[in-house]
């Protein structure tokens, strides 16, 4: 293709027209902060690891923990906490390992694949957290269903005097289940949207490179 050869000749003569930065200008740049995708993934992931745990520090949330005990679900809570923290630690370790593997010195395909793998670790973590949130709502619903006086357990005993207990129970169970579905879906949407936008370009380029080798 003659045009490409023409372009190549012109391209190689281009040096004179390119901007030239001085030593000082470049020197200043190396201390600036990077805005790379990897850095964003790192920060967002750390946030995702932390946020579910920060929620427990909010006073009203710790009050909610007492509700679990009153519903007779205290033991389940302890066990689920032990499981949850072991799994979280496992994920943090995996994430750190994957993050360390990312190197700009790898070829483009390997670099992209490593970034996507790191992101996948966090994705599994989020799926785990979302399932945990959903399951805890379901367990709570079951707890309410099996409890003789759920309103008192929930701390609203004084309001429930004139309401049919069966009807109340059904309404409570339904509310908790619906709330569980809504919270899980909303959090899931936020997460997938965040990474979808962040990694759109990378995903597209990775797919293209992979297709080249088929």
């Amino acid at each position, binding site marked *: *293709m003659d045009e490409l050869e023409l372009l190549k000749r*012109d391209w190689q003569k281009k040096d004179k027209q*390119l901007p030239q930065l001085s030593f000082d200008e470049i020197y200043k740049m*190396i201390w600036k902060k990077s805005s790379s*995708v990897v850095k964003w993934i790192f920060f967002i992931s750390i946030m995702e690891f932390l946020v579910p745990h920060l929620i427990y520090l909010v006073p009203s949330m710790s009050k909610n923990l007492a509700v679990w005990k009153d519903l007779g679900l205290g033991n389940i809570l302890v066990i689920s906490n032990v499981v949850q923290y072991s799994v979280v630690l496992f994920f943090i370790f995996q994430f750190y390992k994957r993050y360390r593997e990312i*190197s700009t010195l790898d070829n*483009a395909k390997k670099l992209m694949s490593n970034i996507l793998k790191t992101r996948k670790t966090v994705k599994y973590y989020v799926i785990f957290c979302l399932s945990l949130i959903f399951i805890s709502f379901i367990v709570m619903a079951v707890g309410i269903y099996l409890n003789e006086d759920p309103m008192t357990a929930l701390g609203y005993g004084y309001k429930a005097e004139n309401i049919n207990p069966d009807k109340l129970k059904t309404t409570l169970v339904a509310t908790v289940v619906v709330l569980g579905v809504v919270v899980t879906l909303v959090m899931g949407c936020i997460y997938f949207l965040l990474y979808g936008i962040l990694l759109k370009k990378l995903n597209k380029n990775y797919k293209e490179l992979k297709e080249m080798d088929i």
Partner: protein
Amino acid sequence: MEHQFVTELECNQNIVHKVCTLYTNDRDSHNDLFQEITIQLWKAYPKFRGESKFSTWMYRVALNTAITLYRKSKKSIPTQDYESVMFKITADEYDPTEEQQLKLMYNAVKQLGDVDKALVFLYLEDKDYREIAETLGISEVNARVKMNRIKNKLKTILNP
């Protein structure tokens, strides 16, 4: 160490500028990408052991930054003053048809996807297929096949 790094980068900065020229459309984005590549090069510098030439090592980090790490790909319209820098031909060999042809070619290359651009960039820099394949992580045969496809793609863009 930073003194040595900056000196080497200053001498080889054309490579980074060329990558930026291909992947951005205005001066702000150009500078932004240049800065990101510089940061990534500096971060990777401790691992540069001088086994290859500094410039060879730069190609990989610069392209990786452009096609993988750099997030902001503003779809801005090329500005007039930036365009004129890109397509200027030195006065002594001025040839209107050739200039027109070059302008069309640059525009066509700009329309390619990120990965295709990387291939074209390495081709224009006179790298052989082995190096192109290694930089992108594909096989040499596939790099050749892909380059032929890009040539056809460019032909289609030029003669729709």
